[in-house]
C-alpha cells in the first residue's frame, strides 16, 4: 500500500490537550456512521437473545401496563380519557412513553456499559448514547402494530394529521437523548446515576399525561406542566392518531425549546467530558 502524497497532506491528525469547550465535530460522527449502525444493530440483536419470548417482550410490556392502567385508573379511579376508550387512550401514550423511558435508561448506562470499548479504541464517543437510543426504536415499531390493531378494533381512524407522528417520535427520542447525554457522562464519574435513573423515569411518568389527560391540569399550571417535553409528545400522539380535538398549540413550542436547550447543553457537556472517559470510567 503506497501513500498518496495528497492524502498524506489532507489527513494530518494533531493530538494535544484540549481545554474548555470543544466543537461538536459532526464530521467525525459522519465518518463513523457505519459504527453507529453496527452498534445499534448489536444492541437490537443482543437485546432478546436467550429469552423465551424474544421480541414479544416489546409488545407484552406496553400491553400489560395498559391492562393494569385500564383496570385501576380507567375503571376503578374513573380517570377521564378525553372521550376515548381508556385502553386506547393510555396505550397511545404508553408507546412514546416506553420509547422514551427505555431510550433514557439505556443511554444513561451506555458509556459505562461500553467501558471496554472506550478504554481500548478511539471513535467519537457520542456514538455510544446515540446507538443506545436508536436501538429502542425497534421495540417501538413492534408495539406500534399493536396500537394499530387496537385502533382497528375500536373503529378509530387515524386523523389526516398522522403524518406528523414521526415528528413527535423524533421529539421523544431527542428528549431521551438530551437527558441521556447528561446522565451517561455524569455516570462515568458518579455511579449514583445508576440508582437515580429508575427513580427519574418513575417520577417523570407521573408528571406526563400517560394515565390521565393533560386537560385535568388546571390552566395556570399548564405552562409549567408543558416544560416537560413528554407532555407535548404524548398529546401530539393523541392528536395525530386519535384525533383529539385540541391540536398542539404554543405549549408544544415550549416543549421544543426545552428539548433544544437540553440537547445542546447535553451535547456540549458530553463532548467536554468525553476526553476523561477512558481515564475515569
Amino acid at each position, binding site marked *: *500500500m503506497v*501513500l498518496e502524497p495528497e492524502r498524506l497532506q489532507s*489527513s*494530518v491528525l494533531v493530538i*494535544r490537550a484540549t481545554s474548555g469547550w470543544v466543537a461538536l465535530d459532526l464530521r467525525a460522527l459522519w465518518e463513523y456512521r457505519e459504527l453507529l449502525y453496527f452498534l445499534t444493530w448489536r444492541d437490537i440483536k443482543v437485546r432478546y437473545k436467550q429469552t423465551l419470548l424474544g421480541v414479544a417482550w416489546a409488545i407484552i410490556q406496553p400491553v400489560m401496563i395498559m391492562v393494569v392502567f385500564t383496570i385501576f385508573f380507567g375503571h376503578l379511579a374513573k380517570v377521564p380519557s378525553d372521550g376515548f376508550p381508556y385502553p386506547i387512550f393510555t396505550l397511545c401514550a404508553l408507546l412514546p412513553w416506553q420509547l422514551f423511558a427505555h431510550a433514557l435508561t439505556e443511554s444513561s448506562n451506555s458509556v459505562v456499559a461500553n467501558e*471496554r470499548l*472506550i*478504554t481500548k*479504541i478511539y*471513535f467519537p464517543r457520542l456514538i455510544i448514547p446515540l446507538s443506545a437510543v436508536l436501538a429502542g426504536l425497534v421495540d417501538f415499531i413492534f408495539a406500534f402494530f399493536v396500537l394499530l390493531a387496537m385502533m382497528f378494533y375500536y373503529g378509530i381512524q387515524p386523523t389526516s394529521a398522522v403524518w406528523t407522528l414521526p415528528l413527535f417520535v423524533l421529539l421523544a427520542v431527542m428528549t431521551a437523548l438530551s437527558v441521556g447525554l447528561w446522565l451517561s457522562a455524569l455516570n462515568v464519574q458518579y455511579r449514583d446515576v445508576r440508582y437515580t435513573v429508575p427513580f427519574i423515569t418513575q417520577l417523570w411518568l407521573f408528571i406526563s399525561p400517560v394515565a390521565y389527560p393533560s386537560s385535568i391540569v388546571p390552566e395556570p399550571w399548564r405552562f409549567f406542566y408543558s416544560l416537560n417535553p413528554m407532555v407535548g409528545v404524548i398529546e401530539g400522539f393523541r392528536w395525530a392518531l386519535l384525533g383529539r380535538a385540541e391540536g398542539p398549540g404554543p405549549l408544544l413550542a415550549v416543549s421544543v425549546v426545552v428539548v433544544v436547550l437540553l440537547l445542546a447543553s447535553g451535547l456540549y457537556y458530553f463532548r467536554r467530558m468525553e476526553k476523561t472517559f477512558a481515564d475515569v470510567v
Partner: protein
Amino acid sequence: MSEIVIRAEGLGKLYRIGERERYYTFRDTLANAFTAPFRWLRNRRQPTLENVGPSPSASNSQSAIRHPPSGLARSPSAIRNPQSEFIWALKDVSFEIKQGEVVGVIGRNGAGKSTLLKILSRITEPTEGYAEIHGRVGSLLEVGTGFHPELTGRENIYLNGAILGMKKREIERKFDEIVAFAEVEKFIDTPVKHYSSGMYVRLAFAVAAHLEPEILLVDEVLSVGDAAFQKKCLGKMGDVAKEGRTVLFVSHNMGAISSLCNKTIYLADGQIRATGPTEKIVTDYLSEVFQDRIESLEQARLAGYGQHVRLSDVRLLSNDGSNLLFGQPIKYALTIESDIDAEDLSIATGIFNSSGTCIGTSFTKEKLSVKANQKLTLRLTISNLNLAPGSYYTAFSIGRGGQEAARHDLDIVIGKPAFQVLPISENEGPFANWSSGWGNIVLKDVQLMIDDE
C-alpha cells in the same frame, strides 16, 4: 521514502494515582467539598506536591491535570514521588517515526508503553505536548475488542471490524480470508460464547490482522493463542511491515521485537531511556534485566495478574544469589501469598536466554493449596537441565487446575531472578568454551550415534 508519519513532541500524561481504578460517588464529592478548604489552608502553609490536589469532581481534577503547577512539571523527582497524588505515566516523550518503519516499544510494567499507545490512538488525551500523525491510524490494544458472546462468529467479524475502523464493504471483501485465517469455517454461525478460548482468540486476531491502516499501533496482543497461531500472527505482522506500512509495536517478547522491528524505543519510568537500532536497545534492556535492576516483583508481573494469589518473593538459592555452576541444579525459594483459599495449584517456570527467547518451560506435577492470608514458602528445584554457560532469567506462573496449557494462570512474573551459568562444572572443573551458536542447552545425556547402513 523518508516521510515522517508520527512526530511526538514532549508528550506527557499525568494521572491521579488510582484514577484508573476509581470512580467517585456523589457522597465522596460532598465529603471532599467539606474538607477542601482545610486542605487548602494546610497546603498554603506547606507548599508540597499536594498543592495540586484537586477536589475529585470532574472539572476540577481535569483542570488541575491540564495545568499542572510548573514546579511539578519540571521536577524530575516528582515522577515517582510516593507522597504525590499524581504520577507522570509519561513525561517529555519525543520521537519521530518515518514511513515504513517498524518500531518496537519496550520497557517494564508501568514504564508508560500502553499510555503512549493510548495517546497516539486518541483514547486518552496527553496532559502536555503534542503528536502529529500523517495517515490513517489503526490501533490494536486488545484482541477482540467489542466481541459479543451472544453474537455468532459472522456477526462478530462485522461488529469488530467496524469497531476497528473498517468499512462494511472492506469487511465483506475480506470476510472469507478472515474466516480462513482463523480456521473457524465450521463454526462461523455459532455464537462465540460456545467457542473454545483458542478459537475465540484466533477469530479475534484474524479480524485485526486484516486491518489495513497506513499506521498500525499494536499493544501486547501476540501473547495470546497457541504457539502455532502466534507464529502465524508474527508472520502476518511481518507481511504488514513489508508492505511499507508503519507499525508501532509494544511487546514484552524480545524475540518478536527483534525479529520484527528495525528500531526500538526503550521506555523507563515514563521517559525514553534509549532509542535506536533494535539489536542494541534490546541488548541494553536485557542487560538491565540481568543486572537484576527489577527491584520489586511488581515490575516483573504481567498486568492484571496476581490479583488474589501472588508470588511475593522469588530468590535463587546459590552461593551468591546469582551465579551457578554448569550442571548444578537450579533452586529457587518462592513465597506465595493469597487472599483466598485456593486449591489445585501448580507452579510453572520458564527460562529465558539473553536474547529474550524462552528456551523451555516446566510444570510441577504436585499440586498445592493455600489458605487465605497464609504465606507459603516453598523450594523449587530444576534438575537435569544442562544450561549452557551464559545469562538467563526466569519466569514463574501460578496456575490453577488442568495440565500445562489448560491451567488457568493466577499470577505470571517474568524477569526475576536473573542468573549466570558459569563455564565451570562442579565435577569436571573448567568447561571448554561453549559456542553460543550451539544453543542454550548442553545435550549432555543425549547420545548421538552413527550406524552403518
